[in-house]
């Protein structure tokens, strides 16, 4: 009598790993909602009219509009657009890691010749780099069309702090998503990876994060179907960590 092939059921350890991954990294806020919320707070803080959040594709040296706030028309046009970091005030902020301010251009040095702010031309622009560990991950802008509006140095400092907060939140999203993928065996199809993660993937994952995630994933695979092996693997990892500490290796967390 032929042996009946049973569908392979996930081992308890696999289910536990998946659950842990979900509980640890499952986001309740969609990427777009997170970006919109961040931008709304930033633009509100600056008493600006519009704003945008761009992420840096380090490989292509380009910035991509991920979220815009203000005119719905311009938002639709801009989202997903890319441009070189070697041009413009936003590119300069990304290239230097320094905040940049701008105003409308005028062609005479005399004040009366200056172009007046209108709905077509902003009166003040502020571009603050989003820095994580002193590396630029993107740029967040605030744009005003109010007559006579300028961004003070206090505004610049505050927006820089906010930009860094945004950068860290976004970067953490990438880390969580990548670690989750590794834990679950990189099962997410290429086409299903959100744009935000695809762009940020060019910036790479902190090596220690990847190492830790891979250790955890390999543990799951090693113990698959053999729950009695899990404590042995766990002890092995503890030994590795202890040894690493003895050798002076410092984990980030």
């Amino acid at each position, binding site marked *: 009598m032929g042996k009946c092939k049973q569908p392979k059921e996930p081992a308890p350890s696999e289910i536990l790993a998946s659950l842990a991954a979900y509980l640890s990294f499952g986001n309740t806020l969609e990427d777009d909602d997170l970006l919109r919320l961040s931008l709304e707070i930033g633009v509100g803080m600056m008493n600006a009219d519009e704003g945008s959040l761009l992420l840096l594709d380090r490989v292509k040296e380009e910035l991509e509009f991920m979220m815009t706030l203000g005119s719905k028309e311009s938002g639709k046009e801009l989202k997903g657009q890319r441009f070189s970091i070697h041009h413009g005030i936003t590119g300069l902020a990304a290239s230097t890691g320094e905040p940049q301010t701008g105003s409308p251009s005028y062609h005479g040095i005399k004040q009366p010749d200056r172009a007046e702010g209108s709905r077509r031309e902003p009166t003040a622009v502020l571009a603050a780099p989003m820095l994580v560990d002193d590396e630029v991950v993107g740029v967040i802008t605030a744009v005003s069309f109010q007559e006579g509006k*300028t961004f003070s140095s206090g505004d610049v*400092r505050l927006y820089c702090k906010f930009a860094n907060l945004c950068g860290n939140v976004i970067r953490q999203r990438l880390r969580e998503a990548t670690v989750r993928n590794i834990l679950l065996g990189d099962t997410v199809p290429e086409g299903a990876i959100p744009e935000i993660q695809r762009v940020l993937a060019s910036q790479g994952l902190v090596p220690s994060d990847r190492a830790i995630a891979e250790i955890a994933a390999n543990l799951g695979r090693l113990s698959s179907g053999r729950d009695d092996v899990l404590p042995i693997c766990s002890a092995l990892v503890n030994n590795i960590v202890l040894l690493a500490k003895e050798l002076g290796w410092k984990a980030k967390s």
Partner: protein
Amino acid sequence: MITAGTELRIINPALTIDWLTANSTGKGVQVAVIDSGIDASHPALRGKVKRACVVHDRGEGRIECEDIPGEESYDSFGHGSGVAGIITDIARDVELVSVKMLGENNTGSGAALIAGLRWALDQKIKLINMSLATSKKKFVPDLMELCDQAYVQDAILVVSKRNFGDLGYPAMFSSVISVDAEAFENKFGITHYPKSMIEYGARGENVEVVQLNGSYGLSSGTSFAAPHVTGIVALLLGIFPEIGTYQVKSILDSFAGYR
């Protein structure tokens, strides 16, 4: 207590900003601007860029400086032109030397910054403006060595601090003249911070600056404060071409408080 600055005033009470602006235009002084380039075709800068070099990052650690004629000098962002315009607004007869290390062909990396500074020092340029800074510690040894070299060879480096976060390098080195932004109306306004690593403050808020395509605009930040000091130093060098960083700092101390 008599500081170096007050001492100089005692020696020469006539050495004031008013006297300086009346007697110097910075004629004969070469000023290197290490930045995103200078737009030599801008009406405000036409004929003022005497030399230019473009720092190319060829990858794999290969960085080269390519000389181009001054009249062909260009700017990727307008940042360097803004800086240059402030310098020539204060010292109208200086000769500008553009060292382009930011924008296309170079990534504005710390390595490009170092290569640009090294080139400027090799050319024996007396006055160098760097409205750029890096926070990356791996560049500190090379930058410090070059700034020390500049001090020893009597080249004067005027640098801006970072706008946000740490002060940045080379602004933290004592071998340079470091500048923060102040909300002064007067372009000759200067503040001395005797107990700070950043020693001077100059106009840096809502400054009218040269922009690309023959235009002008308003900009703020430490980047535009440093060239105000560079312009004043150029005026000094127009009269006292031999002075070095130490003497310049003493004189700037005596100018502090000018509004």
